[in-house]
């Protein structure tokens, strides 16, 4: 049984099609959603999103956001969703290194630390996805 999956960022709709199942990086742990799931709202953390379409698994690296499930429709609202081909490994690595250096340095207050950790988590998610395919 398939259901509608929409992946939406504030800038554009990344994906809108029917899929067979979807796995999301929920803030409380990874969760899988199948057809006819109960209505649900849950925050997401940076990580990998996988969905199965026509027997093929597709993967995207995603940032922060949340998922809404209603009426057998899944909407993922996210600030970043990027496919494996669009990831520029060198760039991501550089951003991650910068964030790590900033984190290791002094004068990092609690909020900055949280923001930097998000950057690192997103970078890691993208790199993991990219390297898996190679």
């Amino acid at each position, binding site marked *: 049984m398939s259901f509608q999956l*929409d992946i*939406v*960022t*504030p*800038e*554009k*709709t990344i994906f809108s099609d029917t899929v067979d199942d979807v796995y999301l990086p*929920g*803030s*409380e742990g990874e969760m899988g959603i199948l057809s006819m799931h*109960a*209505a*649900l*709202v*849950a*925050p997401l953390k940076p990580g990998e999103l996988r969905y199965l379409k026509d027997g093929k698994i597709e993967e995207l690296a995603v940032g*922060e*956001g*949340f998922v*809404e499930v*209603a009426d057998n429709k899944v*909407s993922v*609202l996210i*600030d970043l969703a990027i496919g494996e081909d669009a990831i520029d490994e060198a760039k991501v690595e550089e951003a991650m290194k910068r964030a790590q250096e900033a984190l290791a340095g002094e004068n990092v207050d609690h*909020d900055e630390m949280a*923001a930097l950790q998000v950057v690192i988590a997103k970078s890691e998610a993208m790199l993991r996805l990219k390297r898996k395919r190679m």
Partner: protein
Amino acid sequence: MANLRDIRRRIKSVKSTSQITKAMELVAAAKMKKAQDQALAGRDYADKLNKVLVNLKGNTDDESHPLLGQSEGGKELMLVISTQRGLCGGLNTNLLKKVRKEASPEAEYVTVGKKLRQSIAKSGGNIVTDWEVADPVPFNDAKPIAKFLTDKFLSGEYDKITVAFNNFVSTLTQTPHVSQLLPIRADELAEKQDYEGVGKGEIGETDDAAALNMDYEFEPSAEGVLDKLLPLYINFQIYQMLVEARASEHSARMVAMKAATDNANKMVKELTLEYNKARQAAITAELLEITTAMKAME
């Protein structure tokens, strides 16, 4: 005649000015289209976010969250979104007037864009910080601004955060607008914003009743989700206002440059007429001289 050469020179300079303004007009038109498309592309996100927020509102104790509330008065921090460059008609002047009218006397400012940063600094306003936003507006540029403002509010340094920007009504009309960002008024949360000018009428109102009837499970809890969602809501608000201001800037520039091009072309026409008249006069005078000389020799 020196006069002829002067006119010719002026025609040339006015013509090249009109070429530049024409090019700027076309560039602004293309960028305006992009900004409008961008605002439209965010509609899906806004729609879904609103729906979930309306539902959450019904499921949680409204006033409990520190970002929600009804603060009146107190110390104000105003985010002023102006343009980085000029040549866009009265856009920034009008916004400055609005800011002067709406801001409380002891308000402090955060600015986006060079133009009003300079004006506010000159008139003695205290500018806390300044941000630069790329074109077209990336969502990632809105996030640090939203975070900065939220932190300032939560730390209790300011009691109220407002945003001043130009609201895009149509290509010909942009109106300066001031809206309150924080605290989020619980009753206004997820309501259709009156400043949503770009792409207005493209989506219907969020159906409150239908949204409330959805029986969501919240993971981990309604409060936990609200805690995560409100910052996203603020991010998105800032993003939308930035896009709105950008669309206004480009359309104002387009109109201003169109007027400039038209004026330059009119001027070229007038100067050409003057040039032809002067040339005619010169020829007549020359002929007159020759005939007079001939008559004198007879």
